[in-house]
């Protein structure tokens, strides 16, 4: 557990890091980024929390069962979105042209319209949830090992 100044600043910054990560996930179809990159940014915030507080404190907030359920939910949403287009072909982008996220931009450089892309922003969100939960579980498990504990369950 580091000093009080570090703990307070970490608590403040975790909010900004989470918002930045969600921004990268949400704008994945317009600017560099997407599901994995945004999820990795959120996990770097979790690592910052692990450094400032010790493992026992963080574990009270991020329980392992919740992370496992979030991870499988993200994967199942991704697979369900892929199956939903099976009327034509698997992975078919069935939302293009519909009112949900379905606007079609003109060719060439454009200012960037967020309500485009069809099923891609939704898949970005699912992958972002999965990566954030999965990599957090990995980081927490490694922190558990290095503090000498054994795996429960």
């Amino acid at each position: 557990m580091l000093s009080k100044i570090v703990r307070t600043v970490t608590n403040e910054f975790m909010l900004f890091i989470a918002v930045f990560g969600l921004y990268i996930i949400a704008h994945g179809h317009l600017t560099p980024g997407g599901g994995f990159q945004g999820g990795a940014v959120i996990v770097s915030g979790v690592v910052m929390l692990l450094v400032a507080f010790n493992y026992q404190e963080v574990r009270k907030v991020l329980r392992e069962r919740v992370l496992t359920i979030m991870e499988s939910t993200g994967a199942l949403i991704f697979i369900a979105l892929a199956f939903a287009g099976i009327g034509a072909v698997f992975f078919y982008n069935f939302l293009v042209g519909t009112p949900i996220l379905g606007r079609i931009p003109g060719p060439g450089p454009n200012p960037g319209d967020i309500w485009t892309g069809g099923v891609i922003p939704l898949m970005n969100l699912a992958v972002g949830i999965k990566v954030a939960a999965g990599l957090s579980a990995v980081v927490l498990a490694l922190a558990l090992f290095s503090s000498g504990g054994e795996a429960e369950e």
Partner: protein
Amino acid sequence: MEHIPLNFPFLAAALLVGIALYIIIFKKNLVKLIMGIALLASGVNLFLVALGYRAGGIAPIYTDAPEGPMVMSVPQALTLTSIVINVAVLALMLTMVIHIYRHTGSLDSEKSRKMKG
């Protein structure tokens, strides 16, 4: 930018791959072996990104793009996939090394070998 020869990224990738192969073959510490594999992955990723470069090109993004030809975007997608896969592989290898250290007490690949013949 015009004074750097165009082969420079490929030479850097070859150097990274060469150093990584030297580490994997000749070093005995298990953690150094993992670092060698991470360096090999970095070398291959650099090679993939460098082969997409077109002289004078801009980033392949349509949002607020300036004028000019774009570099190729497919190798960048291949590199992203490779980075994600290597994260999983490295996490798995680190976990196994922790278990080996706990069981045998040593990180030397000669001393922690149990199976011979």
